[in-house]
């Protein structure tokens, strides 16, 4: 009852948020000084040519009218046509989305494994130098953003000890016909583990760069809430019942300590996806973010709009899912 109500409230605020994002992008982009149409045409184009193209893309109307036209199109699934790539925005964006999603999910999994392992290690060896080492590692990893980690990784595993590929999503030499743009999942489903390995060797470094700061946050928060939970009476009680330390941590403390970390992972995962923009650029990875930067440089207004709205939608959906997961995992909310 309460859970359902919260989800409904979230859905309505999500709509408001998306509308706000659309308005801001629309207004911000349209005060760009450079004329995007002029950039598309060859040098000797006449004013007439420019006017004709402006009419074609609707730039001769007021911002408000443009917004109405664009909005009406969006409601029918039409995000307009890219100026620089001359293809429907929806096709372009959806074509690139799988690459970014796969990268983000690989990074998320890495972050959870790394962060979880660090947190458990710090808890198991609490009040020792091991815990202090975990704290220092996490503190340093956290204060360095993904962009710098990406560069460090390029130097380490691309130059110094070149075992991973530093650019692209696949090598041109790969001989494999993908039916979808979800390369990694497709290869997994088709049980082509050689291809999975190839893909992972390409996404390993960008994913790790994205994962390190998040892993540090997870390690810190999970360890903190584990330590707090370890002081609660039910954990003490479990110990006195004769269970081993490992059992007490993983079976009694962890399920409850995970909850606060989980909500945090939701927000942090959206930050991670936001980070793909620059990381994809850094590793020449053909995803949404890389396309977004090109779109901004080319002043490709419809494409920018489409990408930003898609990111916003992705973020709000993730937060919604995390909230629902939280309700499912927390018995206190489930029956309230």
């Amino acid at each position: 009852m309460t859970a359902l109500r919260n989800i409904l409230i979230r859905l309505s605020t999500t709509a408001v948020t998306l509308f706000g994002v659309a308005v801001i992008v629309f207004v911000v982009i349209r005060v760009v000084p450079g004329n995007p149409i002029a950039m598309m045409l060859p040098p000797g184009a006449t004013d007439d040519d420019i006017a004709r193209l402006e009419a074609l893309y609707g730039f001769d109307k007021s911002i408000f009218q443009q917004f109405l036209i664009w909005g009406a199109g969006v409601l029918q699934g039409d995000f307009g046509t890219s100026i620089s790539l001359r293809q429907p925005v929806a096709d372009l964006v959806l074509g690139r989305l799988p690459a970014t999603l796969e990268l983000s999910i690989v990074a998320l999994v890495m972050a959870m494994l790394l962060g979880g392992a660090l947190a458990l290690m710090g808890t198991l060896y609490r009040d020792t130098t091991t815990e202090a080492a975990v704290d220092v590692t996490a503190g340093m990893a956290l204060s360095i953003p993904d962009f710098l980690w990406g560069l460090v990784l390029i130097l380490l595993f691309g130059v110094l000890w070149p075992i991973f590929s530093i650019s692209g999503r696949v090598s041109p030499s790969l001989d494999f016909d993908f039916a979808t743009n979800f390369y990694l999942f497709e290869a997994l489903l088709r049980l082509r583990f050689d291809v999975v390995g190839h893909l992972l060797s390409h996404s390993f470094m960008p994913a790790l760069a994205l994962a390190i700061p998040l892993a540090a946050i997870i390690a810190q928060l999970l360890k903190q809430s584990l330590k707090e939970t370890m002081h609660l009476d039910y954990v003490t009680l479990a110990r006195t019942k004769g269970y081993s330390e490992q059992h007490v941590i993983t079976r009694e403390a962890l399920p409850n300590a995970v909850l606060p970390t989980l909500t945090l992972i939701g927000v942090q995962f959206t930050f991670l996806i936001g980070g793909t923009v620059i990381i994809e650029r850094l590793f020449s990875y053909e995803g949404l973010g890389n396309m977004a930067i090109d779109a901004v440089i080319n002043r490709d207004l419809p494409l920018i709009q489409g990408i930003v709205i898609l990111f916003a939608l992705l973020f709000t959906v993730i937060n919604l899912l995390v909230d629902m997961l939280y309700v499912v995992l927390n018995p206190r909310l489930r029956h309230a």
Partner: protein
Amino acid sequence: MMYEIRDLRLSFPDLAHKPLLGAAPRVEVLKGISFDLPKGTVLGIVGGSGSGKSTLGRAMLRLLKPDAGSIRFDGTDITHMDEDALRGMRRRFQMIFQDPMSSLNPRRRVGGLIAGPMRLHRMDNVDARVKEALDMVGLPQSFAARYPHELSGGQRQRVGIARAIALRPDFILADEIVSGLDVSSQAQVLNFLGELVRDLGLTLAFISHDLSVIRRLCTRVLVLHQGEIVEEADTAQLFDAPRADYTRELLSAIPLPDPHQRWV
């Protein structure tokens, strides 16, 4: 009369049961409380958890706004008075809080904690008054330079008391101020609070769950149960001949430090 309280009602929204649209249902915490508090009385307000005793206290100081009923303080109706108008009167009714760790701003020194309210009310000789207040609660003057976290629980509670009495209020509300203390600190705080009340002619409302403590200090007692007054009586009468069933239950449940009490 220090306080005249009539049919006081107060409720909180129950956010756990709020429907999607519209206001949350309200949980009544005070269900029509009426009593008079004459000047010079030391009133004990006793009740179990959830009886509404702290809510009543905070409503008397207008930290909470009642839904209905009226509160008259020294003849003035303060039920719906706005915060600006109240501010001028606030010096006259003060409060000592249950948890001094939370009620003393951790970033102020003891001296500043006591002086702050006096400066707000533009009192003169603030430094001298701080020293006097520390003397009254039996703390050395050097404590003015300390932070709350450098004090023990009993010492912190005395700072809370010093802060309240330094303003020379007419009325003080003490909300469970000894429940977090060891018996020895508790005895100390109770003893000198009793002396202060006598010396300064204070009117005091003392909220507690512990009837033994109430009997030490109070001249009159209100017994609260689930938001209603179940008994109001002079202290001796309440303990010698309790009228309400709940009072009797409460009295018989207190474990006295006496092996001969018939109990278990």
